[in-house]
């Protein structure tokens, strides 16, 4: 058994009680599976006793481990009772399994660090040109968005605009002038609607009514003739030569 005095280290050098235990176990120079847990407990307890300058917060974990190991030691040494729970042999086995796993990872870490590492053993380009992705905005909007936006704006501003537009009517005088002027432009039959000015809604209704009266007036004056195939069918107007 190695002398723990050789491990002249502060507790602060250890990564916790398991780390200390593993190092002590290694000093037995046997496979972890063949380790003497009893000797290991002895080593650990002796080592802890020798560290007189313990900082309590650092030492707490180590002292808890020491207490647990002292219990394990007594359980291992005392005559075993058949129904004893937990079985001290099993506790020792668990401890050994934990040490094996920590040892395995410590070994794996060392092998990992020994690999050819970028920036230490192999090198990539120090000043690569780099790849650039230029993002171009592909603007997206739907026709529905467009017309509903216009509807929204119209609704917002409409009371002002609408009142003015709505008062527009076509007087009979205006319709007479318009129909008599347009009807002279062609000798063919033309629907009364074709004489109406552009527009929609009330203006159109007003224009239709006025133009109808104008057409009747002009027919009465003998300047145009009218033709309609059936009730509500299109009304045709033609200038009389």
């Amino acid at each position: 058994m190695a002398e723990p005095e050789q491990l002249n280290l502060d507790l602060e050098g250890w990564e916790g009680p398991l780390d200390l235990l593993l190092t002590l176990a290694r000093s037995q120079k046997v496979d972890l599976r063949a380790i003497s847990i009893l000797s290991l407990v002895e080593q650990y307890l002796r080592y802890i006793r020798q560290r007189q300058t313990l900082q309590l917060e650092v030492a707490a974990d180590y002292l808890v481990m020491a207490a647990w190991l002292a219990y394990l030691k007594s359980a291992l040494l005392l005559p075993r009772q058949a129904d004893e729970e937990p079985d001290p042999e099993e506790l020792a086995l668990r401890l050994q399994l934990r040490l094996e796993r920590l040892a395995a990872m410590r070994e794996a870490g060392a092998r990992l660090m020994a690999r050819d590492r970028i920036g230490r053993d192999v090198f990539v380009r120090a000043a690569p040109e780099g790849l650039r992705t230029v993002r171009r905005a592909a603007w997206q909007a739907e026709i529905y968005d467009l017309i509903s936006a216009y509807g929204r704006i119209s609704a917002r501003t409409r009371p002002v605009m609408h009142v003015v537009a709505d008062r527009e009517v076509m007087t009979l005088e205006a319709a007479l002038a318009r129909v008599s002027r347009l009807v002279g432009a062609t000798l063919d039959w033309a629907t009364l609607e074709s004489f109406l000015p552009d527009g929609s809604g009330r203006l159109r209704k007003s224009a239709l009514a006025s133009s109808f009266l104008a057409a009747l007036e002009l027919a009465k004056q003998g300047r145009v003739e009218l033709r309609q195939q059936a009730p509500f069918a299109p009304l045709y107007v033609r200038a009389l030569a």
Partner: protein
Amino acid sequence: MTPPDDGIRAVEALLFAAAEPLTAEAIRAHVGDAVDVRAALARLAEDYAGRGIALVRRGERWHFETAPDLAHLLRRDRDEVRRLSRAGIETLAIIAYHEPVTRAEIEAIRGVQVAKGTLDVLLEAGWVRPAGRREVPGRPLTFATTPGFLAHFGLDSRRDLPGIDDLRAAGLLDPVDLAFEEALEVAKDGESD
């Protein structure tokens, strides 16, 4: 390719990993006097001729760079779909319905100022174009829509845009304002009695 000897390999690796172009002397300082650096450089220039990487000499210094004819690959354009903001779509709608229209007119119709960025986005999207100046004091610029606008929205012409009546029939006028309008009509009917 024929694997080069270790001297050439060393020069190759050194130039590859270097942060800046290296002189032959600087290379020699690393790889040692046993290597014929000039010969190694000549061999490497030959090895890389016609590849995607080239060994080039700039003054007294050497370095690897991507072949000039492939530089365009290092840049990639990617379209990112972005939706127009509310301000953007409203401004576009006003231009579409009223074109040609000045910024001041757009603002008068919207009742809100139009941020410069809003028009920029519409110009960038290719939906709106400057359409000459209006011959009034200050000669303000007018805006109109483009063929790209018609294409994006699937319209044959601006006449395909629904009129106000169509919008109302489709229920696209704001309910609050509609109610207000109906109130106005009732008032008018009352007057005409």
